[in-house]
């Protein structure tokens, strides 16, 4: 038994070292901008950079749009499939698995070839069109996670009873989804939203190949040209990811535990 515990601690210790050392090293490096002693100069330099502000704002905006579009696309679909079209469920599962199978770089290559300026739907012909395409690309990347979050949320509430009750009170379907179902799965939707944000905020491949001024391409450019700022940006990115995941953990505490309305 003693030996058991020793090995567990050893494995845990080695793992912790592997995961913590790069974070410590990155943080230490990010403080070394001023010669001789530690300072937060690299962070000040990052925050003062207008490109940082512009690209971060741009990616946040597109990320938020992607969350809204993702919710609008996923929530009604999951609702109707759960309530009335259960035979479409395997199809949904398959579709939401596709973004994990098809690499992002292949997807964006397909977009560029299919939606170029001389095609029927010339998304990439204008800046606005490309922004729309980028938003949809982000929705696609996050689709597996958004779908699973919403699906789990709807499993936990009794949508059939809620729908019938609302129908008896005279609500029509759009109203039922917007004012009855959505508030009940809000926690799940928000989890999906934070996960979407964590995935797309620093997205590089699609953003850079669509030539949009996002945070991911900005990170890459800074990495190629600066010494200390990249470390500061890595720490900031880690904090953002941690924040998004922390919010999901926090929200999970408010999630309805069971579909207790059976009586």
């Amino acid at each position, binding site marked *: 038994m003693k030996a058991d515990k020793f*090995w567990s601690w050893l494995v845990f210790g080695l793992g912790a070292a592997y*995961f913590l050392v790069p974070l410590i090293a990155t943080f230490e490096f990010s403080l070394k901008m001023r010669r001789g002693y530690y300072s937060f100069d690299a962070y000040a330099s990052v925050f003062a950079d207008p490109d940082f502000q512009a690209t971060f704002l741009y990616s946040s905006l597109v990320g938020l749009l992607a969350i809204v579009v993702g919710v609008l696309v996923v929530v009604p679909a999951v609702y109707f499939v759960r309530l009335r079209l259960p035979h479409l469920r395997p199809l949904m599962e398959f579709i939401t698995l596709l*973004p994990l199978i*098809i690499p992002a770089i292949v997807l964006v290559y397909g977009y560029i070839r*299919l939606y170029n300026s001389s095609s029927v739907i010339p998304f990439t012909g204008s800046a606005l069109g490309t922004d729309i395409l980028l938003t949809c690309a982000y929705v696609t990347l996050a689709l597996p996670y958004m779908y699973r979050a919403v699906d789990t949320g709807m499993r936990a509430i009794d949508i059939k009873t809620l729908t019938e009750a609302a129908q008896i009170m005279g609500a029509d379907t759009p109203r039922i989804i917007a004012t009855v179902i959505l508030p009940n799965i809000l926690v799940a939707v928000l989890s999906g939203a934070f996960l979407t944000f*964590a995935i797309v905020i620093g997205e590089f491949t699609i953003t850079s190949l669509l030539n949009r001024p996002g945070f991911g391409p900005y990170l890459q450019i800074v990495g190629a040209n600066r010494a200390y700022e990249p470390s500061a940006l890595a720490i900031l990115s*880690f904090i953002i990811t941690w924040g998004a995941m922390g919010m999901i953990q926090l929200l999970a505490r408010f999630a309805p535990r069971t579909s207790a309305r059976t009586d």
Partner: protein
Amino acid sequence: MTDTVIPTATTARPRRLSFEWLGVAPFILFAVMFLILPTLYLVGAAFVGRDGQLTLDNIAGLFTEQILAAYWISIRISGASAILGALAGLAIALAIIRGRLPDGLRSAVMTFSGVASNFAGVPLAFAFISTLGRLGLVTIILKTVFDIDIYRAGFNILSFWGLTLTYLYFQIPLMILMIAPAIDGLKREWSEASQTLGATPLQFWLYVGFPILWPSFLGTLSLLFANAFGAIATAYALTGSSLNIVPILLYAQIRGDALQNPGLGAALALGMIIITAAANILYLVISARAERWMR
């Protein structure tokens, strides 16, 4: 639309039906436009030559030294990071779940895994350059304190092992998250029963534990492989275009037609889809088998 008559059962029926389809239609349309059509288009383009005729030349064009080498390095890096990530992730998951460590540790590790598995891309490359790059903290400490110059010994963060070591940062957490439910599925009764029958812990793991975990392990392994195979941001930020792996080759092709043949580019993409799809199908088949033990 304008009638104010209370809808009877017969008029309500078709309306509800159309709502059902209206609700699912955006999802289907979305999937067709942004997942299915672009992929099918590329698959088709892989079989069309410059002159617009059907051809197998693009596929044949993949079998050049440079492209085969790119696929081979990609497969090796994805394979190495998947196998090492799966083994390390399994060990850590076993340690925190079955290893009699303090309870709080488990949820801390799981939370951290959620963060680290999403901490990929460009920032991850920065973190490893600060750690194991030429001026990285670990490199310097090893050199000044222990007198070990890892760069003189042949290590380079921009190499096969450098990239593999970096990929492990998101592979191991992913493994921990995926394998934990399977380890939870190992019932306490089973180890107690084998103990009662006189089995040593080693015999328990050899004959009961690992055979049950095996399908989940293999399944997650193939998922990790596909995960690394399609990744580009980390590699690109680490090495620029100096490392000849398939995603970087495809990136260069999309950027500036580096292969000077759009059909060949599509064939390259088709090759990637086939490899990641094969890995994922393996995952689905194996995990369907593994679920029998999770009830």
